[in-house]
C-alpha cells in the first residue's frame, strides 16, 4: 500500500490513503483528545473535542481524511482553550457530581478535562432532571451523565446487532432512548456483556453488585493522564472479543 505523509505539530506522520487524521495519529502514538470516537466504530464527529487545524482551518480529526503534506495543528493554546470550552459546556449540560459517581477516576470526560487543564465548569449549570433506569438486574443507567456521544448506539447497532439504544429529540431536548416495550432497559434484549455496555466514555452504564471494586486513587486516570494510558473503552472490552 502506498504510504504518504502529513504533519502534526511539525512532526512527520505516515498514513495510508483513506485513513483519517485520528487514525494516523493513533497509529503514530500521538494523542488527540476525543470522546465520541472509538476506532472500532464509524466516526461521527459529534463531540468536537478532536478539533484540530488542518492548513489553518478547523476540522474534526476523527472524520477528516489525512491529506498528503497537510499541516495539522493539534496542540496550541487556542485549540486547548476551544476544547476546554466544549468540555465546560458538556459538564454544565448534565449533572456531573464526580464525588458521587462510580465512574470517577476512569471517566474519559473527566480525564480529557484534566488533560486540557479545566479547573471548573465556569458556565451556569442546567441541573437537568433525568430519571435513572435501574430496571435491569445487572446494569444501571444514570442518564444524568450522558454526553450523547452515540457510542452505545453504534456499538449496539454495528457490534451487537441489537439496536437497543438510540438518540431521540432535537437540540437541547436530545436524549438517549431504549428500544423496549416499556422504554426500560430491563425489558430490552440487553445483556451486560454486550459491546454496548463497554464503550460509554462516562458514567452512564454502571454494572451492579461491584461498585467501587477498584478504590478511588487506584483508577485508570488517577495517576496518569489519558494521553499516556488511553481510552477507557480499550480497558473495558469484554474478554474474548476484539
Amino acid at each position, binding site marked *: 500500500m502506498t504510504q504518504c505523509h502529513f504533519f502534526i505539530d511539525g512532526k512527520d506522520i505516515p498514513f495510508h490513503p483513506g485513513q483519517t487524521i485520528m487514525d494516523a495519529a493513533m497509529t503514530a502514538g500521538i494523542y488527540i483528545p476525543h470522546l465520541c470516537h472509538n476506532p472500532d466504530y464509524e466516526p461521527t464527529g459529534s463531540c468536537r473535542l478532536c478539533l484540530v487545524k488542518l492548513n489553518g482551518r478547523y476540522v474534526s480529526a476523527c472524520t477528516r481524511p489525512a491529506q498528503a503534506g497537510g499541516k495539522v495543528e493539534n496542540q496550541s493554546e487556542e485549540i486547548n482553550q476551544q476544547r476546554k470550552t466544549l468540555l465546560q459546556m458538556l459538564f454544565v449540560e448534565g449533572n*456531573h*457530581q*464526580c464525588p458521587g459517581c462510580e465512574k470517577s*477516576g476512569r471517566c474519559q470526560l473527566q480525564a480529557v478535562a484534566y488533560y486540557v487543564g479545566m479547573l*471548573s465548569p*465556569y458556565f*451556569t449549570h442546567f*441541573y437537568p432532571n433525568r430519571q435513572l433506569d435501574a430496571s435491569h438486574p445487572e446494569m444501571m443507567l444514570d442518564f444524568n451523565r450522558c454526553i450523547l456521544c452515540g457510542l452505545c448506539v453504534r456499538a449496539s447497532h454495528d457490534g451487537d446487532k441489537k439496536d437497543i439504544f438510540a438518540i431521540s429529540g432535537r437540540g437541547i431536548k436530545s436524549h438517549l432512548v431504549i428500544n423496549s416495550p416499556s422504554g426500560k432497559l430491563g425489558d430490552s434484549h440487553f445483556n451486560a456483556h454486550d459491546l454496548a455496555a463497554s464503550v460509554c466514555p462516562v458514567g452512564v452504564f454502571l454494572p451492579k453488585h461491584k461498585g467501587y471494586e477498584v478504590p*478511588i486513587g487506584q483508577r485508570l486516570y488517577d495517576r496518569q493522564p489519558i494521553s499516556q494510558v488511553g481510552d477507557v473503552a480499550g480497558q473495558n472490552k469484554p474478554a474474548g472479543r476484539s
Partner: protein
Amino acid sequence: MSDKLRVATASLAGCFGCHMSLLDIDERLLELIMLVEFERSPINDIKQIEPVDVAIIEGGVANTDNVEVLREFRRQSNILVAIGACAINGGIPAMRNHFSVKECLEESYINGIGVLNPMIPNDPEIPLLLNKVHPIHEVVKVEYVLPGCPPSGDAIWTFLTELLEGRPIHFPYNEIHYD
C-alpha cells in the same frame, strides 16, 4: 499590624472536608502561619469579617445565610477562591436540585426513615433554603478555583505557596481531581 497576607475562610454548604484538607498540610501549617495571618475562619473561630487579601470559600450556596456570608466575604476580599467541588459546581448538596424544597423537607423531616416527631423546622433563626443549590460563581465573582472533593493537602499547599509568591499556579497531574 503585620505585613503578612491576610486570609479568611468560610464553609457554606460544604462538609468541612476542604478545611480538614487544609489542616492536612500537616507541619507545613507552621510554615504557612509565618506567611499568612488568619482572619475570620472556622479554624480560629473569629466571627467578624475584616478586609482581607484572600478569602477561601468552601461549599456551595444553599440558603439565605450562605448568600449573605458569601457577599460579605466578596466585599471584604481582594482575591476570592472557590475551593472544592461544592463551591465549584454545587457538589453533592446540589443533587437535591432535582427535587423541590418541599419534597426535600418532607423526605428529611416527615417521611424519612427513623424520623421521630415528624415536623418541618420553622424557627425564624433557621436560614431559609434556596430553591436550588448554586456554585459560588453564580453569586459572586471568583478569581481562583481549586477543584477536588476535597483537594488534597498537597494541592492546597501548591496553590497557597504559588499564590503567595505571585506565580502563575501550576499543579502536578495528580493534584487536580474532581473527586
